[in-house]
């Protein structure tokens, strides 16, 4: 099966690990991610002011492209997913807005594309049971805390890939890999997002709470599906260790890296070593590398 794939800006740059590990893993599950032949930045944030549709032109162009190449499009980054999904949601309900955008883009988007996050692809198109069956190296004994953040869940009626208060899709996925899943209260809180620009103090506080909560739940590592979350979480560990002597740094990685590992990919292809806290020693300890 081929699925049109929108990588977004980071997946070919800072988040190459995310891109590569996902492509490889999915191949093993019989899915080929087919990168859109042309794409542009989605804008990174969904414009929150409904009085102005022009802010939607960039993501609309991506959707338009996707519509030409299939009936669905998948993305890995939570940010891209959120923007594309909300844009699509709005355009499907706002005929007038759609016309303006099409005019401006010289496009012809008709709202026939389904935007899927890669976790949804795994759940709905592959099936976690199927994933579990394909697992050749169960990740026994690794205590993993999934981190959802905001973009996959809110607003519930527009994007929510699962219940926005008690989601389980991430946990279910990790369980299918054989991990010990840690469910912790702060997994749906915000990491600080774009406060990375100029307000590291805020990010450190916000991401710090998430990390602490995962730590209290017994986690040894945190997985995420967003390059910005990963960046914020990693960078908040050092200050957190200073504040909370009991806290020990733990690796933060993309969930696809664990998927690859479980499916039998070799570690060198999955971990480029860019992580601030390298997960490999821990995985080696567990006999998984």
């Amino acid at each position, binding site marked *: 099966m081929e699925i049109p794939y929108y990588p977004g800006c980071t997946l070919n740059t800072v988040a190459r690990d995310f891109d590569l590990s996902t492509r490889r893993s999915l191949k093993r599950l019989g899915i080929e991610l087919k990168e859109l032949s042309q794409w542009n930045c989605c804008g990174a944030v969904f414009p929150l002011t409904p009085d102005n549709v022009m802010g939607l032109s960039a993501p609309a162009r991506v959707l338009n492209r996707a519509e030409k190449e299939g009936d669905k499009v998948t993305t890995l980054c939570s940010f891209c997913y959120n923007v594309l999904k909300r844009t699509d949601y709005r355009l499907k309900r706002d005929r007038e807005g759609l016309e303006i955008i099409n005019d401006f883009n010289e496009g012809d988007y008709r709202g026939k594309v389904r935007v899927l996050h890669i976790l949804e692809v795994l759940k709905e198109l592959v099936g976690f049971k199927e994933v579990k069956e394909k697992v050749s190296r169960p990740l026994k004994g690794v205590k993993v805390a999934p981190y959802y953040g905001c973009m996959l869940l809110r607003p519930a009626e527009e994007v929510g890939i699962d*219940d*926005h*208060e*008690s989601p389980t899709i991430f946990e279910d996925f990790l369980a299918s890999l054989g991990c010990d899943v840690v469910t912790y*209260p702060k997994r749906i809180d915000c990491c600080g997002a774009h406060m990375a620009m100029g307000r590291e103090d805020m990010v450190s506080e916000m991401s710090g709470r998430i990390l602490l909560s995962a730590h*209290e739940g017994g986690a040894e590592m945190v997985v995420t599906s967003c390059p910005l979350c990963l960046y914020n979480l990693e960078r908040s560990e050092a200050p957190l260790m200073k504040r909370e002597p009991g806290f020990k740094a733990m690796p933060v990685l993309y969930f696809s890296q664990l998927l690859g590992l479980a499916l039998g990919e070799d570690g060198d292809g999955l971990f480029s070593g860019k992580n601030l806290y390298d997960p490999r020693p821990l995985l080696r300890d567990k006999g998984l590398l």
Partner: protein
Amino acid sequence: MARIGVFVCQCGNNIASTVDTQKVAEEMKKIPGVVYTQDYKFMCSAVGQELLKKVVKEHRLDGIVVAACSPHMHEKTFRKACEAAGLNPYRCEIANIREQCSWVHHDKTKKTGTLKSTDLTRMTIERLKKNKPLKTINIPLKKKALVIGGGIAGIQAALDIAESGYEVILVEKEPSIGGHMAQLSETFPTMDCSQCILTPKMVELSMHEKVRLLTYSEVEKVEGYIGNFRVQIRKKAKSVIEDLCTGCGECIEKCPFKADSEFEVMKGHKRKVIYVPFPQAVPNIPVIDREHCPKFLKDKCGICAKVCGPKAIDYSQQDEIITEEVGAIVVATGYDLMPVESFGEYGYGRIKDVVSGLYFERLASASGPTGGEIRRPSDGKVPETVVFIQCVGSRDPKRGVPYCSKICCMYSAKHTMLYKHKVHHGQAYVFYMDIRSGGKRYDEFVRRAIEEEGAVYLRGRVSSVYERDGKVIVEGADTLSGTQVEIEADMVVLATAIVPRKGAKELAQRLGISYDTYGFYNESHPKLRPVETNTAGIFLAGTCQGPMDIPDSVAQGSAAASKVISLFSREDLVREPILAEVDERVCNACWDCYYACPYSAIEQHPLKGRDGSIVRWVARVNEGACQGCGVCVAACRSKAIDLKGYTDEQVYAAINALV
């Protein structure tokens, strides 16, 4: 040709000062069919009435118009006088020339008033010509009442009716009466023990000679109308012969199997498979829960039958259908609590120490599973810090219901007191949005919780509840200080919204009463007819109508009972003959009237051929239910339905007489 008499009243000077009554009377004489006219000083006086009677007889009149004050004043007076003179009272009409003429047109030349009075009287005469003699309707009345639901509201209604000497059937779907009140510990605002004040009433009811108590039963079908309802009641098989059972409890004691208890709201709390819901149950007769009893599932066990001395166990007992005729029905089916599993952020169902208010009642109840000791469910420890969260699901249009549940402010305050009385060193916190404690001694009660018992009230909602190190962490806001707050609690109690009974809408449809968007039953008028429904003869009591506390439920039970009693105090039902009437030859069964009628008074009636097969359907008006509003008449496009006393013909006659 008609023989109509016209009387024009001067009302002393009230009419005569701006209307030339004599001239009006003379003008009327010119109208064909008018054979007698007169003006007179005080028509409503004894002399005036005598005059009217005399004239009717002497001139063999077949109709009377009195041009005088508003019909709301003296229509009855003059109609009675006509009746005494042997004339059908509905052949008497009033022209309102006082309130709507002489008093509002102050023209002393009398020109204006006389002209208008002439017009009004003429219109009334023409209308009268089309009037048909009508007879008041006497409907026989069955002086026996049905009460549905045996909570405190239903118990109160049934007792009041029985006390006044009328028979009552009380139908309760559970094995015991008592309703929610039986589950409560102590009750605001007086803090008396719920069981202590409820049990005597339950017993009194069951012993009352006028009361027939049908527990474990449900109303299946209701037909008929006020005074004459026919109801079918399904009495579910208890598998215990009530007449033989002595209530010794031996069977319960020996039954080896258990199922979840409905009465103890706590998850996992069990009762036996043969059971009474709670020890003080009325009647104290057990029932077998057939869904869980192996005797019924796979023909095993049978112990209860062996141990029962009086041989009261009967596994082959069948449901019984009882048909009863009653004159009035009181609906008192109570409420449910909103299931809050959907509020993921409060952790209900996930975190053991997050419980509902009703659960807390059981915890605090001396007859509850902990004997009244406050112990948290996870590990049985006495909680040192308890957080109460109000408005859970209430006043939450997005995910719950928009209305206020009315009682939770009060019972949360009560809970803090109960808690403090039992755990002296404990601390109670309450998250609230507003405190709604209107009522006698209610606000004082809440203040006592704060000032004397030391409950800390935080104004704001809670955004999330989660576990950490055996504690329940509550994150919320205190909007008064404008800050976020976090409390490390041992237990959290949710004041969940009051919602209608499951199945409330279906029961309403069976009864033909209306309900609001949620399923609470509609009263006829929120202020002036609070316990009546729009279906004559069916009354409401208690929380089936909307959230309310025990005092209100009891007041309503008594009010509904008094409505029933006043209905029963008459010989039979006398109805004004202002009723809709269907011309079955013209009716084409479009059912427009059926849907338009606010009182469900139109019935769909099959016309049968000689061989008994249905030839066609027509609308028929149920005279017991019709209130004479005429909505159906205007709704009918085939002109097949008309309103007696206000027929199309009568209205057109009045309009035609305009000029």
